[in-house]
């Protein structure tokens, strides 16, 4: 197998640029979907009339749709509505919409794993409902949420590659451009790029396992 096309200086630079876009999109979407997911998950947990039902509707519809459909919608659909986002922003938005629904479910089951009796106990001590969530329930839930959250964010990093379908200049897309020009290099190129994703995601998974042990111990 000939890796010379991969390890050409110009090509490596081009892949590096792609990797930076991948990481930029992933990092932004992780932060935003974490925030939105916590809000949505907590709203669903609260059992507030109407609001918790709206949160449930959003979560159930979005998480049961293909991400690629949402990415298409965030690009071609929004354009049709006259919303012209830069492509990077469009993908960040779509990935945030999708992942926040999945994060919300993780948050909700984390919250549910804490005994609801603790809410009553804290309330009877004079905590407001928000204070109870903030200081009593959420800290306990967060610990249990770490492993599924990390898997979700690893999935997000992998899924940024789907944006190749709308030609976001991320890692997979840039690799594709190179091997379309040098078809013999397709397999080495895909292997090399797969390895890059693997190194990032596997390190994250290992770090999460270590953190989990530390928190448990």
């Amino acid at each position: 197998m000939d890796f010379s096309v991969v390890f050409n200086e110009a090509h490596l630079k081009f892949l590096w640029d792609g990797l930076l876009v991948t990481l930029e999109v992933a990092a932004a979407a992780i932060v935003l979907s974490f925030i939105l997911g916590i809000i949505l998950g907590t709203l669903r947990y609260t059992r507030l009339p109407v609001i918790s039902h709206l949160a449930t509707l959003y979560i159930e519809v979005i998480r049961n749709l293909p991400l690629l459909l949402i990415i298409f919608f965030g690009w071609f659909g929004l354009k049709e509505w006259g919303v012209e986002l830069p492509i990077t922003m469009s993908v960040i938005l779509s990935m945030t919409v999708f992942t926040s629904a999945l994060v919300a479910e993780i948050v909700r089951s984390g919250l549910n794993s804490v005994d609801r009796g603790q809410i009553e106990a804290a309330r009877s001590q004079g905590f407001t409902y928000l204070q109870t969530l903030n200081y009593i329930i959420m800290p306990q839930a967060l610990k249990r949420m770490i492993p599924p959250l990390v898997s979700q964010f690893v999935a997000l990093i992998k899924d940024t590659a789907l944006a190749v379908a709308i030609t976001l200049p991320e890692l997979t897309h840039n690799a594709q451009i190179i091997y379309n020009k040098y078809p013999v290099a397709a397999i080495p190129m895909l292997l090399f790029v797969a390895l890059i994703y693997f190194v990032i995601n596997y390190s994250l998974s290992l770090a999460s396992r270590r953190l989990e042990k530390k928190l448990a111990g």
Partner: protein
Amino acid sequence: MFDFGFLEGYEQDFIDGFLTTIGVSLFALVLSLALGTVIAVFRISGVKPLEWFGTAYVEFFRNTPLVIQVFFFYVGLPALGIKLSAFLVGSFGLSIYTSSYIAEAIRAGIQSVPKGQMEAARSSGLTYIQAMQYVILPQAFKLIVPPLGNQFINLVKNSSVLAVIAGGDLLYAADVAGTEQDITPIYIFVAVLYLLLTIPLSLGVNYLERRWSKAGTR
């Protein structure tokens, strides 16, 4: 109300696309179950080289993008002189990817049954296979099935990756129909079709999870 005018002339594309999405999902489910079971058995076999292979397989395919795995089959096989339909290319990519998750679900289910039970079963004269079949697997089953259901839902959603390789699935049909007209109503229509497939599956998985967790498994 909702205007279905966009369907005109594309009825057959949408019907074919819907059936392709279902077909790929089912075909990949069978393949990935078979592959996933083999890998799970490798991982708990106690034979070191098999365990290493199983671990490497699971970690590699779980930590790399599905699109890349599909591209491997899409550009890799023709390079070796093997020409496959987009349906098969997509199914193979999806199966490899999903099998790594299924292998983990099966392994976790089996290992959640306390080790002592295997020892007890073996010492009372059952063979390894019998102990698996009559003692371990029936208990593991209830822990394995709900995650498998979730993987099937993911398969249905992920089958949309076929659109990237012009695979003729539902999302691809939407793309084709949307080239010369407004695409928003088409996306909404297609989204509803996906939900028709995934929501009943989700409800089914939720039901099993609730029912079996109440039954006091473990």
